[in-house]
């Protein structure tokens, strides 16, 4: 009985989360401009989408910026993580705190502060400024994905490679890079997805008619509901779904690779905690 209630509750919440998405997908195939009626199945809106130069142009901008910003942010961010790994003390703390600023700051503040910078530097707002902004908010995520991998790294392996006659660059390429690769790829994918998804920062750092998909959707939605947006949504939802599945397969593959060790560690932790908590409880009891 209770179990059925719990299942019901979970089902209701998930229905709430997915209903809007399903509605969008459904209406993207509706052969009627008004949403009050179901006019039969059609691919008409997808056809119109392919002819809408405004939407296609913004799709192109979105992809160009996502690819470039993710790639550049991954290079700068990975190098930064490798470098920062060697920094210690106050300097490192200050740098890390500044690195966290774009992650924690509300998007709107990041957006307007970058806009002020570009205007101050007399750069015309457009594709380039939007790209620079995207690189800026992507780098911290790359750094934060790579740093943990570097921390796990066994430095003795690198030293062993040097002792065996490898040049520092060769040792880096053959020893360090493969070890931190999972972190780099995660950072890259994260940066790519964040860039595709961004609206607020792009909105403030672009100008003169250059729009990405989010900006186009915003300006269309402001004028009311439009079936072509439904088609765009469906395609974007599918794209994100595919990306997510890829990322998750990667993560679970990696987890199973080091699964054994983790498992043992976890069992140890668990025992330890159990013991600790029992001790704590008995102490409280005695009191």
């Amino acid at each position, binding site marked *: 009985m209770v179990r059925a209630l*719990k299942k019901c509750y*979970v089902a209701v*919440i*998930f229905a*709430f*989360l997915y*209903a*809007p*998405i399903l*509605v*969008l997908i459904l*209406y993207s195939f509706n052969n009627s401009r*008004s*949403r009050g009626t179901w006019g039969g199945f059609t691919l008409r809106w997808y056809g119109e989408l392919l002819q809408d130069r405004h939407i296609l142009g913004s799709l192109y901008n979105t992809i160009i910026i996502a690819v470039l910003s993710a790639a550049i942010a991954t290079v*700068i961010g990975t*190098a*930064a993580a*490798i*470098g920062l*790994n*060697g*920094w210690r003390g106050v300097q490192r703390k200050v*740098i890390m705190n*500044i690195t966290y*600023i774009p992650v*924690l*700051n*509300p998007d*709107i503040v990041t957006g*307007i*502060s*970058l806009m*002020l*910078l570009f205007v101050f530097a007399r750069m015309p707002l457009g594709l380039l400024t939007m790209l*620079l902004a995207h690189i*800026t908010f992507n*780098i911290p995520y790359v*750094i934060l994905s790579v740093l943990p991998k570097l921390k796990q790294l066994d430095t003795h392996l690198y030293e062993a490679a040097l002792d065996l006659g490898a040049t520092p660059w060769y040792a880096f390429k053959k020893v360090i890079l493969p070890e931190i690769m999972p972190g780099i790829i995660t950072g890259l994918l*994260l940066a790519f*997805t964040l860039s*595709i*998804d961004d*609206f*607020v920062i792009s909105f*403030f750092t672009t100008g003169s008619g250059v729009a990405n*998909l*989010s900006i186009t*959707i*915003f300006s269309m*939605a402001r004028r009311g*509901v439009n079936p072509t947006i439904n088609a765009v*949504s469906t395609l*974007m939802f599918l794209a994100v779904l595919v990306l*997510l599945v890829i*990322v998750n397969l990667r993560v679970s593959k990696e987890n199973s690779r080091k699964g054994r060790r983790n498992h043992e560690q976890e069992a140890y932790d668990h025992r330890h*905690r*159990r013991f600790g*908590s*029992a001790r704590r409880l008995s102490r409280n*009891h005695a009191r």
Partner: protein
Amino acid sequence: MSYKWAASPYLVWMVIFIVVPIILVCYYSLTVRTDAGFRFSTDNFRRFFEPIYLKVLYRSIELAFVATVVCFILGYPLAYILARSDFKHTNVLIMLLVVPMWMNFLLRTYAWMTILEQNGVLNIVLSWLRLPTISILYTEAAVILGMVYNFLPFMVLPIYSVLSKIDPSVVEAAEDLGANGIIVFRKVIFPLSLPGVISGITMVFMPAVTTFVISRLLGGGQFTLIGNLIEQQFLYVSDWGFGSAISLAMMVLILLSMAVMSKFAGEDRGLGLW
């Protein structure tokens, strides 16, 4: 192994694109433009205390607060059920919770326009059921609904991650000592889940306070929130000084509360988002 120099391109980037912009925001917020150029002044901050702007601030906090409370009421039971029931596919359910968050934020908000509008899905369903139709698009209720919808997973995930790590033996010990279900929850589980609750509240309240998209699309521009106010100052009114002052105030407020919250919430903050 030391590659300290590898960080230098980033350090340059960081100074130009993170530090300098913040300095610029400070500069614009602390100066006013006069005929003779820029002059130091705290006018921009003082303007914020005019009644109309205080009202905007109040409304932003009020709507975000209501949305946070609703998220908590809906989200805690969900996190609790997911963490403490032996469903077969809890991992899949968590994944399903995250998927909508990866869909474009604007599209998620736009979807609700389709549902809530006068001849939208909600009213079609209501009229099938022979219930009176309602029109809540472009009202406060719609804005709150949009916030709850967009930020609910941010409440569930941290609470879930804390709850699922609670040592079962602690609960067993409480039961052995004679506590019933309600007491176990009140005295053991809920206090232990507080770090998750705190980070959940932060992660819902912060974006809800600063949003300008939800209020614009679902509130139809009738509900000016702080985010909308900032947008207006920069894009329509061109009062950069005032806009910068509001942004700076918001930034300081949020970074401070993040720092305080992370003290409470420990290291798990934001876990499981990707």
